[in-house]
């Protein structure tokens, strides 16, 4: 059989697309779309709530230390050691 004949028979070879099959596919399409919409909404809300909580937590931990008592280590202590100022010659 030539390629042209095969192409002609392929053109006639259509799907059995009847009303029942069409409505079954449409029903499942609508169902999947609704599920995906609900899932996307839930994910969006979780992300929004999570982000808001994270920002609030960040603000809380940033503000909380500054409102507390003054730290004991605010002023640094400089310890100086006096070697006598002779560069060690006094021992010699």
């Amino acid at each position, binding site marked *: *059989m030539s*390629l042209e*004949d*095969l*192409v002609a*028979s*392929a*053109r006639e*070879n*259509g*799907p*059995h*697309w009847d009303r029942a*099959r*069409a409505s*079954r*596919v*449409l029903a*499942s*399409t*609508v169902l*999947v*779309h609704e599920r*995906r919409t609900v899932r996307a909404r839930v994910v969006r809300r979780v992300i929004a709530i999570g982000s808001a909580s994270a920002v609030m937590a960040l603000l809380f931990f940033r503000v909380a230390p500054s409102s507390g008592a003054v730290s004991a280590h605010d002023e640094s202590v400089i310890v100086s050691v006096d070697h006598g100022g002779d560069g060690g010659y006094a021992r010699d």
Partner: protein
Amino acid sequence: VTAIARPLALCEGALDIESLYAQHARYVAGVVHRILGRSDGEVDDIVQETFLDAYSGIRAISDPLAARAWLVTVAVRRTRRFLARQRRRQLFAFWASDFAPRASDPRDRQPVDDLYDVLERIPADVRIPWVLHRVEQLSLPETAAACEVSLATVKRRIADAEERLERRLGKTP
């Protein structure tokens, strides 16, 4: 008037998904069926995925007359993904791949089965433009748009597929 534009005159009006489905689902299923060469659940899955994409993407189409071409492009993209997945599965699980013949009884075998047996050995990027142009009778620019490649590329791929088919069908007794 081209093969795609001809039925588009019927689809003027609002682009809601159910009317879109009623107008174009049969055509989209036909395109997918002719690319795959079989009519089982895979065609239904690809049609479903195509119209799921239509839910989110159809608002981007300003011209309702372009809806069919848009749906064909999405269906072709989905079919290409399906064929790539199937090919990967066959590569990595060749022992589990389906070697069943298209018809259990050789007398039930249709002439078109020979064509699809050969087409299955041709890469999807070469096979799909050939089916769209030769079997679906889309024009070359429509085929290029559906496959999302340039006109020169689609011409080269169709010629490549034609050559491979002639060679392989010539070998078979």
